């Protein structure tokens, strides 16, 4: 039952003592007629503005609330916030003693956010902090900070980043499932390309990806990604990839958070991309941003959803003041930078942080090719890291130096070979000579032996012949 109580100041002239029995009668009648268990009085301020005798009013309100309680109905009363320290304008909280909820609507930097705080709740423990809330088409939603115990389920599973050479830098496996990844980069460095590659990789695994785009329209993004060989259209058609573009300035932080929450519940993605998160980081009170992002990541990590953020940074820096808000809740942090050398502009990618992953601390050159993203090892020249054509030149130089070295080596080997042959020749010759000597010597030896034999023979013959002669000459005597 909805009842409008009209209280118009102009009509009323307070002419003496009175009470609010009329209100009691009216309420009692209304409650009884439908057997109401709950009553809403919205707002009590009207009575205060309509009736000038505050003393009577207060006394009657006290009576009213007791009366409502005695009737066993739950009553919600609304009243206006007081100025300064007081909770209500007219000290209402004194009478309403069971539970007091304070609502506030603050506007900062043109964005308004509503906050809620449970000031008192008799007979029950309650969170005492201020929680932002929002009111949308589905009603009232409050998203308090959950998981303050930091105890979400953790996965060992690894997901490809969509870029093979990047996976290599991450223990050849890629990101952890359920982790939060941030790519910071100067404008035009290819952050969206990395997001798109990651989204594509997820969809190719049959997983759902929710892509929240805060800068580019969906059609533009899809078109742009085709130029690096990433076609997202089929994934959209298969309902594996859902885009949700919007302008960050359209709503306050809380609204964004609530919308994301709703989308996540509806679509149940395994991967969420937020490209970029920059406007949130820079526009609002940094404590609120940090709180909001913490809660967002809590929301997602509790569901083991892997989150991929991109962030724009200004040239030359790697850590903006605003990034401080987010860096501590990020597990893996990549940085893309432009370098200008010899009139050429190239990109470098650094891994600033990768929790739980032994990551390469090297810098790679980041290339957007028509076959996707490629990472190339950098060359270190005299003046430091080289990229682009300087790198190519250096590579060429090194190649030719390598060739020379090889040739020199070959040369030496050939020389050695020749020497060996020479030596072997020498040896052969020596051998031959030696053999010749040997045979000569042998021959000589044989000759000598045969001559010796001859002589010996001769001698013995001579002896014999002399003996014969001697025997012949003997009778003479």
């Amino acid at each position: 039952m909805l009842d409008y109580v009209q209280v118009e100041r102009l009509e009323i002239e307070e002419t003496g003592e009175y009470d609010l029995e009329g209100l009691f009668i009216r309420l009692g009648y209304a409650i009884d007629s439908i057997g109401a268990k709950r009553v809403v009085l919205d707002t009590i301020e009207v009575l205060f503005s309509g009736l000038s005798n505050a003393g009577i009013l207060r006394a009657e309100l006290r009576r009213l609330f007791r009366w409502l309680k005695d009737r066993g109905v739950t009553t919600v009363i609304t009243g206006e916030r007081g100025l300064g320290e007081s909770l209500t304008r007219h000290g209402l909280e004194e009478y309403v003693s069971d539970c007091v909820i304070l609502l506030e609507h603050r506007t900062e930097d043109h964005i308004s956010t509503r906050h809620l705080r449970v000031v008192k709740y008799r007979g029950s423990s309650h969170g005492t902090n201020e929680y932002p809330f929002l009111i949308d088409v589905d009603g009232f939603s409050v998203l308090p900070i959950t998981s303050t115990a930091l105890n979400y389920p953790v996965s060992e599973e690894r997901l490809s980043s969509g870029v093979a050479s990047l996976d290599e830098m991450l223990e050849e496996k890629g990101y952890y499932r359920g982790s939060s990844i941030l790519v910071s980069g100067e404008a035009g460095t290819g952050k969206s390309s990395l997001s798109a590659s990651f989204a594509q990789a997820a969809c190719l695994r049959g997983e759902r990806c929710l892509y929240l785009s805060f800068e580019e329209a969906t059609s533009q993004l899809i078109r742009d990604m085709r130029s690096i060989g990433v076609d997202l259209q089929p994934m959209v058609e298969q309902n594996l990839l859902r885009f949700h573009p919007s302008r960050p300035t359209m709503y306050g932080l809380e609204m964004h958070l609530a919308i994301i929450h709703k989308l996540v519940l509806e679509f149940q993605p395994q991967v969420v991309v937020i490209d970029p998160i920059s406007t949130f980081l820079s526009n609002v009170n940094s404590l609120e941003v940090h709180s909001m992002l913490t809660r967002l990541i809590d929301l997602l990590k509790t569901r083991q959803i892997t989150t991929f953020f991109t962030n724009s940074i200004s040239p030359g820096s790697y850590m903006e003041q605003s990034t401080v808000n987010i860096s501590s809740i990020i597990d893996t942090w990549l940085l893309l930078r432009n370098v200008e050398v010899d009139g050429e502009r190239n990109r470098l990618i650094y891994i600033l942080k990768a929790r739980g992953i032994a990551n390469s601390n090297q810098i790679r050159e980041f290339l957007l090719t028509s076959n996707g993203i490629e990472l190339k090892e950098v060359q270190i020249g005299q003046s430091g890291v080289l990229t682009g054509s300087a790198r190519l030149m250096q590579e060429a130089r090194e190649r030719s130096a390598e060739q020379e070295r090889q040739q020199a080596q070959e040369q030496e080997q050939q020389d050695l070979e020749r020497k060996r042959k020479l030596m072997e020749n020498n040896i052969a010759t020596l051998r031959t000579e030696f053999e010749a000597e040997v045979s000569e010597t042998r021959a000589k030896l044989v000759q000598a032996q045969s001559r010796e034999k001859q002589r010996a023979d001769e001698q013995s013959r001579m002896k014999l012949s002399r003996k014969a002669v001697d025997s012949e000459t003997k009778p003479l005597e």
Partner: protein
Amino acid sequence: MDTPNVEFWVLKLYVAGQTPKSLKAFANLEKICEEHLAGQYHIEAIDLMEKPQLARDDQILAIPTLVRQLPSPIRKIIGDLSNTERVLIGLNLVPVKPQTH
């Protein structure tokens, strides 16, 4: 001879039971009417205890409430009507007789 401000007044006094306040209000009202309306009036007493739905229909919060039904526009006064001056102002009644005697 009809003076321009002599009209017929219809006054409704809303009360909640026969409380001292209600009785006092009623008495005060009668006195004022006698003095200033010279018989050109009709007072109706409405007890909300008996007819609670009228609290809503006629938008009555405070007790007692006096409603000037006629002449229009409708005027509402709350209180026991002990402050005559305020009653007169509230009813937009110009005093018929001068106050000094």
